[in-house]
């Protein structure tokens, strides 16, 4: 019986995509190695190891692609089947937003909302517990690091923290 989650030469084959990304990366590493100067075998240059590592990457990526085409591989959708795929997506969005907010807003103003979002959006913790944790933990950590260990945390445009 055919398994609908295992495909061969299809764009939805996740193994094929993995191999293609590997091949592209290998190509880029080979190009970078060439650009940096290969040198000779007596006196290898800065790009020598990069160049040959790039070749190896292409070889291994090609092996993955061949195996994906001949033996087939799971579809991209099946990798996220029966899991709460939206939860890591929310977490990634929160972390990306935090990365952008950290420097302009500073540690305290960016980490308190991050904690609150994580506590409420993934597996919701009740508000009466989420708010104290979200406020007290980053503040406590900030106090320990800044006041006790004298580590300078980003204070942002508003100079808070």
């Amino acid at each position, binding site marked *: 019986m055919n398994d609908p989650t295992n495909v061969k030469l299809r764009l939805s084959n*996740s*193994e094929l*995509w*993995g191999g293609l990304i*590997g091949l592209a*990366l290998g190509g880029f*590493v080979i190009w*970078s190695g060439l650009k*940096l100067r290969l040198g*000779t*075998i*007596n*006196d*290898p*240059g*800065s*790009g*020598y*190891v*990069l160049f040959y*590592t*790039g070749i*190896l990457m292409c070889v*291994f*990526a090609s092996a*993955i692609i061949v*195996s994906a085409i001949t033996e087939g591989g799971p579809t991209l959708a099946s*990798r*996220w089947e029966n*899991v*709460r795929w939206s*939860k*890591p997506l929310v*977490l*990634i969005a929160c*972390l*990306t937003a935090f*990365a952008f907010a*950290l420097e302009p807003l500073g*540690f305290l103003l960016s*980490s308190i909302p*991050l*904690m609150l979002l*994580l*506590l409420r959006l*993934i*597996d*919701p*913790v009740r508000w009466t*517990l989420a708010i104290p*944790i*979200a406020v007290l*933990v*980053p503040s406590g*950590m900030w106090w320990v690091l800044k006041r006790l*260990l004298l*580590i*300078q*945390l*980003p204070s942002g445009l508003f100079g808070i923290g």
Partner: protein
Amino acid sequence: MDTLVNVAHGFGVALLPVNLLYCFIGVFIGTLVGVLPGIGPISAMSLLLPVTLSGTPESGIIMMAGIYYGSMYGGSTTSILVNIPGEAASVVTCIDGHQMAKQGRAGPALGIAAFGSFAAGTFALVALMLVAPKLASLAIAFGPAEYFSLMVLGLVVLTFLTQGSMPKALLMACIGVVLGLIGLDSITAQPRLTFGRMELIDGIGLVPVVMGLFGVAEVLLNTEQAIKRDVINTRITHLLPSKEDWKASAGPVGRGTILGFFLGILPGGGAVVSSFASYALEKRLSKTPERFGHGAIEGVAGPESANNAAAGGAFIPLMTLGIPPNVVMALLLGAFVIHGLQPGPLMITQNPGLFWGIVASMYIGNVMLLILNLPMIGMWVQLLKLPYNILFPLIILFTILGVYCSSNNVFDVYVMIAFGIIGYFMRKLGYEPAPLVLAFVLGPMMENNLRKSLILSQGDLWTFVQRPISAVCLVFALVLLIAPLLPSLRKKRELVALDEGA
């Protein structure tokens, strides 16, 4: 006699109050992360890597080592009581350990795991004391060709033992080498793959890469599923195993200890492989193999001893050759480097206080673990009930702070988040991060040794084959690379393949 004098010197260092405190913190955190499913020793060590900066090198490394062997102890508690391995090396303990707990024998299972671990840890330390100085004096004769070949072997063994397809693991190792080469070339000082960014001139830091790939990615994966925990609720009594239990376990403990120690020394091996190997050995030697899987105490005693002995054995290649045999040791190497120290053949003679201090502290740590694990078992059970939806935001916050504090640089936080996302997608597509991390650490050393040996031999590639140690390593690596192509060996590889986090 020399060894005894050195050991006494080591105890002098390890028994300093500050080192005792760091040792206690290390084994306590190790047990904690071993007990809590979802956080392994790698995540915890990467989280605490920046903390090692605050004290002396001895204190920092004593703490890091404590986390490693502490997690080996703690992992068994979760396996036995919850049937979820606290860390990868305790996967096998679930099989018989949880069955014993279901039959009301959680106490003896926990007891034999702790006593077996203690015996194995003690043996591994004595062997480490005896073997390491001898191996270090041998390693002085190693040239760049030997170092290069040994590192190649280490990487190939790890890729061989990694779950999933071998080309994927090898591709990950190559990516790790490339990432490790980012920054200034150590020989020509030419910037490589920096894309004009000043932050990349010194290369990418180990801390953000490891925290991203293991810490953040692990949390992302865990949020996909609601973690269900079936904690054994009955009161845990009779932690001391009975006479019959001791009789049944003595052999498995002894065999597991020796097997684990030797497998721990091998590059790429470690605690996970040894626990699986010990379980398979005990099942094969047993007169009643049908009891395995239904609560056989040998199935707990052997693997638990093996993984602790392997944790001790893994220190040998790092301390004597400066080559980390697995990812955990790569992190420990990172801790050494942070303090400007280079483990290797000269460390034992040039820095005896550090080497013998660490070894002695490991013994003290083993005693602390026995005290922590048995009388405080109730506390660890309570911890198992801590909800993951509160735990994971805290882990995220600690990783962010850990990364920031290690360099005082916001760029590293971006790197960590990026590697966290990359690590999540890598795992979803079946690419394990362990070979990448080991190659990331070994990459610059491999390049350096390769270029040095080529310059010294005037471009003669035969130099790698003419030197016996180098030739043996390369032949062994080649055999492992070819092995998965043979169907019978491929099956064997799948049996011993280890999960990430080794």
